[in-house]
């Protein structure tokens, strides 16, 4: 009981911006023969990849874009206790980008000797933070958790242009064990150089070592991954800088996660 109280206290102290657990999407299938079918996704926050044993990932900011970037509405969106899930109808061929992406502002200030905190979109900022807030600390938090599904032949994945993102040189639905794949990371549309990128194979629960592959982007924001084995992989990268894109905010965290499937050659 005492531990529970301490745990609660720790939760309150920990800044809301730090996502302790890994955020991931789990597709039921990534390569589909033809349009007309369905794929299902799970979305969860958990350190074990890809076991939903911690908490469901909120799916309020879920977006799916089909070929030509046109939005596609996911169906049967449900939030459970340990995972969220949704179905996607594949009406047209090409590549679908499935993402949970957000751009928020975290604020902390003092009011009457008490700590106040607020979290919301940049647009809601002015209405929720007092103009004369004392010891105001602001941070922009961008994040993108995504995965890709291709029906028939792959189509281009175009850059979003905001925050940290992966732009495939090798298509994310064309990954094979033993082969090298190149990806470029962009921050606000420009190459993210010297960015540490971590890649971890799924099934962490069944092995003792984390077996993470640690990489760093080159001057062009490029990494080359040679997939050691088949399976689902989770890719993780994060930038902390002072280049927030929200007026009046300096500090920024921009995080990117992707789930990629690697097949046998």
């Amino acid at each position: 009981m005492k531990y529970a109280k301490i745990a609660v206290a720790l939760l309150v102290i920990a800044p809301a911006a730090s996502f302790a657990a890994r955020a991931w999407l789990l597709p039921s299938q990534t390569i589909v023969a033809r349009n007309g079918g369905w794929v299902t996704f799970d979305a969860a926050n958990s350190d074990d990849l890809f076991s939903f044993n911690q908490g469901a990932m909120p799916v309020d900011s879920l977006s799916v874009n089909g070929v030509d970037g046109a939005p596609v509405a996911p169906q049967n969106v449900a939030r459970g206790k340990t995972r969220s899930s949704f179905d996607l109808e594949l009406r047209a061929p090409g590549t679908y980008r499935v993402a949970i992406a957000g751009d928020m502002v975290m604020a902390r200030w003092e009011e009457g000797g008490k700590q106040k905190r607020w979290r919301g979109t940049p647009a809601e900022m002015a209405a929720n933070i007092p103009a004369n807030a004392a010891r105001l600390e602001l941070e922009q938090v961008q994040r993108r958790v995504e995965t890709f599904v291709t029906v028939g032949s792959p189509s281009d994945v175009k850059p979003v242009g905001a925050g940290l993102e992966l732009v495939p040189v090798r298509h994310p639905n064309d990954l094979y064990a033993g082969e090298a794949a190149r990806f470029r990371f962009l921050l606000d549309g420009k190459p993210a150089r010297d960015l540490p990128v971590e890649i971890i194979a799924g099934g962490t629960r069944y092995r003792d070592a984390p077996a993470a592959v640690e990489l760093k982007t080159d001057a062009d924001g490029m990494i080359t991954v040679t997939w050691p084995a088949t399976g689902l992989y989770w890719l993780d990268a994060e930038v902390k800088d002072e280049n927030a894109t929200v007026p009046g905010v300096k500090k920024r965290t921009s995080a990117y996660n992707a789930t990629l499937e690697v097949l046998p050659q």
Partner: protein
Amino acid sequence: MMRMCRFFAAALLATTAGAAGAADLTLNVEIPNLPVAEYHRPYVAIWVEDGTQAIAAHLALWYQVRGDHTKWLPDLRQWWRRGGRDVKVPVDGLTGATRPAGQHILKFDAAAEPLSKLKPGRYELVVEAVREVGGREAVRIPFEWPIKAAQKGAAQGKTELGAVALTLNP
């Protein structure tokens, strides 16, 4: 019916082989007899690949034609990624029903499509097989094009394929 087909195929082979000056590619593919509880005939794709690992010529695709089973074609993983996904099945002269365990002889005229479109160079003949509730296997046999002299190549499958033999006759 089956026996008849085989007879005609053999007769046809004999006739073509007899024709002088007709260069050809002959392939012998063995589908092994597998002592498993649940057996399904494999899906098989046969193609010619160039140095860039792209498909230079599709030679054969055997799948469950009756009913709508094209959903499982991506299980022929390498065929699918290297160009199978752009093939709108069925295709005359390319696609056909799955075949039983045994020896299958395929013969292609070097002067006719799709082989006539091959540019001179080094190629690989690839045979990939995948079986429902079974495994997947691909074997490769390198060869030179065009056929200047007789060439023979062979590969031995371990699980889903048996012996595969390639003969090129000038």
